[in-house]
């Protein structure tokens, strides 16, 4: 694991294109930062005309370019999608990424819901062993990054809530049946999905990591907005996470 270092500066926007309806890929040139980015880490990005920065997970790092993928859901992401050049103020990389060493003998299982796929894409590219991706979305049109997993030899199992692709229903239902003792989980997605996966993991005594998300103002632990209970202690998603061991997250 390389030394951690965080930056807060202006970086040039290389491109910011709609990759499929409603989803944008933002590429930023950040020579000095790239080598410090780990899967699961994120940046706080200054977006014009909204009060707070927006946290955004790293999708991948190529040469001196960091890529982010986001869905336009509110004013912040809408404003971000209107940027087509100039510089963006980025703070990061923030948080602790996935521990790639901890369970390296187990079989890698990635579970993703919605845009959670973005940071898991980066993770898959860094894991030494190929594995299986369980990926649930609302509808066929929300599937992103699937090819990137396939390209590096991962098996991809998809579910859609409306049945437009793959299994109809929730990905957790598919996962539940297939999970094995020697699997290790890497999970990112909506809180309900993570909670469900955590229950499954607990029941089956399966180890792994989940990446949590809470509203945060600063990304560096100062606002204390993103506190969660982890292993009996109060932890900050931004600083102590966003990745935690699945068995340590306490669900209320």
């Amino acid at each position, binding site marked *: 694991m390389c030394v951690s*270092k*965080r930056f*807060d500066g202006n970086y040039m926007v290389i491109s910011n294109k709609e990759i499929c309806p409603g989803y944008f890929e933002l590429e930023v040139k950040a020579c000095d930062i790239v080598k410090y980015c780990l899967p699961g880490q994120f940046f706080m990005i*200054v977006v014009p005309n*909204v*009060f*707070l*920065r927006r946290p955004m997970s790293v999708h991948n790092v190529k040469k001196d370019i960091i890529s982010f993928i986001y869905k336009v859901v509110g004013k912040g992401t809408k404003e971000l999608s209107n940027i087509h050049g100039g510089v963006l*103020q980025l*703070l990061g990389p923030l948080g602790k990424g996935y521990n790639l060493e901890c369970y390296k003998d187990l079989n890698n299982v990635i579970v993703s819901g919605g845009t959670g796929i973005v940071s898991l894409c980066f993770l898959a590219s860094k894991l030494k062993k190929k594995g299986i991706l369980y990926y649930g979305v609302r509808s066929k049109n929300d599937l992103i990054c699937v090819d990137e997993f396939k390209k590096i030899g991962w098996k991809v199992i998809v579910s859609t809530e409306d049945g437009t692709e793959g299994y109809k229903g929730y990905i957790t239902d598919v996962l539940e049946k297939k999970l094995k003792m020697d699997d290790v989980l890497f999970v990112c997605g909506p809180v309900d999905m993570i909670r469900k996966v955590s229950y499954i993991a607990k029941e089956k005594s399966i180890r792994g990591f989940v990446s949590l998300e*809470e*509203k*945060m*103002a*600063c990304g*560096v*632990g*100062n*606002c*204390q*907005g*993103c*506190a*969660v209970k982890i292993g009996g202690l*109060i932890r900050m998603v931004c600083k102590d996470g966003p990745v935690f061991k699945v068995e340590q997250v306490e669900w*209320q």
Partner: protein
Amino acid sequence: MILDLGINFAGIKLKNPVLTASGTFGYGYEVGDLISLKKLGGIITKTITLENRLGNVQPRIAEVSSGLLNSIGLQNIGIKAFVEGPLFKLNKIGVPIIVSIAGNTTEEYIKIVKILTMQIGISAIELNLSCPNLKKKIICHDVFLMQDIIRNVKKISKVPIIAKLSPLVTDIAELALFAQEAGSDGVTLANTYPAMAINVKTFKPKLSSVRGGLSGACIKPMSLRCVYDAYQNINIPIIGCGGITNGGDAVEFMLSGATAISVGSASLISPKNLIKIIDEIKDIMYRKNIVSIKEIIGFVNTKNAC
């Protein structure tokens, strides 16, 4: 032109008037990798209580128009852990350290101050008086208790006491005077504004505690008015606080009567904003040909007001 940004706040010499606002800058040393902390006028720590506090459950944060709602619930490690850990790190920075403290009773404040009095490297104590008393009323709304706390703390403290007041009172100028009368060496004006927001998709409050504190650019005009009104009524110095985002905002507070200012939400957005504010104050001093920042304290209030 050599600019003098130095001020004297209740006997504490600050090399510039820019402080961190309590609760927005952690214990104070955490972002030392992102900015040069020794450039700051001083650091006000997050509020420390007698015992550690876990804070509120999620959600604790909501964004609103030009502002931020929060209800953290004073999460902190407690005074003993603070003096054993963070305080050492703070003292290495080399700027005045102001410790923010809170309790529910006078006794709690006294106990905390007794512990702090045994420490070195604390320049002042800021009393957070916006936390609830035993009857769930905030201390600033219970003037008798507020004065009792200030008086008792003042008796034992070896460093200046600064009372941080809630802006949500009928007469902030009167409240500031009550703080002065009880012996406070300065006041911070003002804390956040009680506020709330509801998610209209789910019909649920956006904060687990329903009510939270509103901060950010949206509150600036109101807190500026608090400083303006209080300045006319007291002769202890004021730390102006509320939505300061740039040097111009800082100067507005000083023109209204603040001797120093503290930056909260803007430093959450980027700790670099603290340094930017110091630089922008200098720019304004150049432009307006002001040699010492002290000159502008209360300038609009006492001289140019209609």
